[in-house]
């Protein structure tokens, strides 16, 4: 039974993917893509409604029939309301997420409801993970769906699902959004090697790389700079947004080398490199990453860190389209 249902669901997913093509985010759910079926409880209700009708007809009771018809009508109206709960809802999502193997890749979904009615119990499903939220009238809500990722690599989802059972749990309306979500799963950070000393393979000279120990004057603001380095006083005086520039005492680039971990298997090496990346970043050091086929020049900051982690995640794995 379960496999049959799974097969039917897969068929439907494939068919909707062919039918609607790729979606460009944000997606507004239109009525042509919302499907609806009774839930198990809805089927129980249908049996009961049939019994009600038969009883009413059998006893020739017009009042009994009136009540039974009212219940049938309520069920039909509920079907429309369940369907409506998804209609004209806007969905957006950050299409990329980063995670470590054995952890979870969290995708942030935004649900935007411009209508004057509440959308309650809207569930977003990707693979086996789900998140549920109610979006009140004229408001937006974010939903985080965390997909468990056991292994390093790239997890790509071609579609996700929006579903709801509101109002009474008698019906189950759903829609598929054909948008690709990518999770870059870095190796789980572990290893027992100490962080290599700075300048291990690079130049021994003290370079004027940016650091954060010595104040070295102001420079223009650029995105990605830590907020604590912002020159707020300058900004308050009405000047340009500026950043206090520092030179780092140990500002010599440090190279995290694949080759320095000879003798270990690939995944262990990647895990060790991953740990180093995190440690270096935590220590606010300038570092570069060198793995076969890929070299990331020394830098720091969140963007750099992500670039390194993604390089580790995609090592020896075909990069998604």
């Amino acid at each position, binding site marked *: 039974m379960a496999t049959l249902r799974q097969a039917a669901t897969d068929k439907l997913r494939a068919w909707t993917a062919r039918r609607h093509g790729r979606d460009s985010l944000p997606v507004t759910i239109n009525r042509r893509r919302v499907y609806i079926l009774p839930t198990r409880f809805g089927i129980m209700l249908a049996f009961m409604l049939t019994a009600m009708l038969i009883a009413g007809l059998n006893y020739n009771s017009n009042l009994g029939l009136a009540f039974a018809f009212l219940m049938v009508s309520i069920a039909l*109206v509920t079907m429309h309301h369940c369907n409506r709960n998804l209609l004209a809802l806007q969905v957006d999502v950050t299409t990329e997420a980063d995670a470590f193997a054995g952890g979870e890749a969290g995708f942030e979904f935004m649900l935007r409801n411009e209508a004057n009615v509440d959308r309650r119990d809207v569930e977003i499903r990707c693979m086996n993970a789900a998140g549920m939220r109610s979006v009140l009238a004229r408001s937006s809500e974010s939903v985080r769906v965390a997909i468990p990722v056991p292994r390093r690599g790239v997890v790509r989802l071609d579609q996700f699902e929006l579903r709801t059972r509101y109002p009474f749990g008698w019906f189950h309306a759903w829609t598929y959004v054909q948008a690709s979500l990518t999770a870059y799963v870095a190796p789980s950070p572990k290893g027992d090697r100490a962080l290599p000393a700075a300048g291990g393979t690079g130049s021994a000279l003290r370079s004027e790389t940016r650091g954060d120990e010595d104040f070295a004057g102001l420079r223009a603001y650029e995105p990605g700079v830590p907020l604590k380095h912002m020159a707020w006083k300058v900004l308050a005086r009405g000047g340009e947004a500026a950043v206090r520039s520092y030179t780092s005492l140990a500002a010599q680039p440090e190279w995290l080398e694949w080759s320095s971990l000879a003798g270990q298997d690939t995944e262990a090496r990647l895990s060790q490199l991953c740990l180093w990346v995190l440690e270096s970043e935590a220590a606010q050091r300038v570092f570069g990453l060198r793995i076969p086929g890929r070299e990331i020049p020394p830098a720091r900051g969140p963007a750099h860190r992500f670039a390194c982690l993604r390089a580790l995640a995609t090592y020896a794995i075909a990069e998604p389209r």
Partner: protein
Amino acid sequence: MSSRAVSYEQLAGISACLALALLAHLGSLPVWVLVTVAVSGGIRLLLARRGRTAPPRAVRLVIALLAGTLLFLQFRTFNGLAAGTALLALMAGLKLLETDTQRDIYVITLIIYFLSVAALLEGDSFWLLAYLIGVCWLTTATLLRLTSTLPAPDWRRSLTYAGRILSQALPLALVFWLFFPRFAGPLWHMPDDGGTAGSGLSDTMSPGDITELALSDEIAFRVRFATAPPPPQERYWRGPVMHNFDGHTWRRAKFTSMTAAALQPQGPAYRYTLSLEPHQHNWIFALDWPSHWDLPRAALTSDYTLVQPDPVSRPIDIAATSYTRVQSSDPLSTRMRQRDTELPPHGNPRTAQLAQTLRGEHPDDMDYVRAVLNLFTQQEFYYTLTPPKLAGDSVDKFLFETKRGFCEHYASAFAILMRAAGIPARVVTGYQGGALNRFADYWIVRQSDAHAWTEIWIDGHGWLRIDPTSAIAPSRVQHGLNDAVSADEPLGSRWHRRTPWLADARLRLDALRQLWRERILLFDQDSQQKLLEWLNIPEPDGQKLVMVLTVALTLVLTWLTWAVRREIDPVRKEPLLRAYSRLCAKLAGVGIPRLMHEGAEDYAARVAQRRPDLGPAVTALCRHYCILRYAAAPARISLGQFDAAVRAFRPSSKQRQHAGARADR
């Protein structure tokens, strides 16, 4: 989702709904079932209050088995309405006891809905329907609160939303109800519950029986005459006829043949529709003497009582024709003559003696009848609702000692005097009279109109109705019971009959009740046929009914889809947005749709570039829109003016080709 644990509040809500649904069954369910449900609900609530889960499975199983056995011992079946309802109620109560997850609550809501229908199969009042729709509303709102995972909406919002769904369901339900094909009979026969006692007249008559009925204001039936109604002294409604007398009680004959001898009508025919209230007996009251009726299963017995095979357990309407005066030239069979002159061999000796004496003086049958009636009028006989109790030879006591009695005393004594003289006589019970509801032109016959009279056989004429009561108290027959008994008699609810405005209000209420009954309770195949005729559909039949149902359903569902979707239209309730989107729609109609990201001013600029002829108008409209929407200062143009301007704006599509041609070049 549905396997989430229930909260105390959810349990309390569903228990309240169940209690309200069971309230509709209060009279019909065995008390112990109600107590069991109440106790198990109470225990579960108490446990939930302390944050505990349901009692262990073994305990629940034992309770369920015990209750099921008890139920079977009481009803001997789980089939039928009463047993089925009791079983459902028990199931709901026990389900409540074991409720741990929301799925259990879903099951209870289903039972509540079904209990509501079961109550409506028995009851038939408007108020019951309204009450149960209220219960349904409440249950649905409770269900709404179960489903919401995140901060549940408050009660008011739940009720509003459930109410909206209910109100949108009403037109759909009406279409179903009007056009869903009805069947003539039941699909299959359900076992008779048998527990319901008959009301009104019964198939025996002892002194005091009808006196009891005279105190009841309950309605026996209503009659709407298609012709002029018969005069009051001919308004006799025939019920069961009594033949066998044992010295105290009159009884119906055990076996009555279903062949009634033909009668020759003497007077005008009266056509009428009689709306009979259920009385759990198989006879049907009709104006004396019935000749035609539209109930295929009903037939006349040899003593002219209209009967049907099953007891009247639901309200029915009978269209019938009667003649108040008839003759029969057929002779009376010896068997029937013997049956209707039979008297118990012993008892009431003085009555027999009196009959012998009178018969000696009046050998002619009619002379003898007149002599007996004279006896009643000349001696000090009284017509009273509080006759003294009669023991032993009841007829002797009545005729020679107490001389106070109600119609059954007189009918009984008269019939015995006739039989003692060899004249075939029988006692007919039924109703006499009735009150006109002048607000709706029909007659109400109440239990207090119950009456007993006699029929005697006169050779050459046939059965002749003699009402001895009319000799004692002529006003009983002319004006009804109220005028016939003196003011100090304990007549039921006499005071409101004497208060004119209250009596009027009662009549109006009854008129509404009759309307409810005629239009709603007795809506059937014929009514549907009339409905189709009214809709100008030629030769209505079942197939056309289904077609009409389909068409009407399609219409209502289209409306429903529109109404439900309209609520999520963001521009609804915002006249300014509505007017602006109308403008955009008009411009889209001439080939320049607004782009998603485009603001009003950019859009106007683009339109002005593509269609210079529309430029000034569109620019002005868009500027007004911006001012109305965003400007803090009061705008010079009002919302209404803007709306009117948009409505008046009619972009011609003429220049479109021109512009297109230019673009091609």
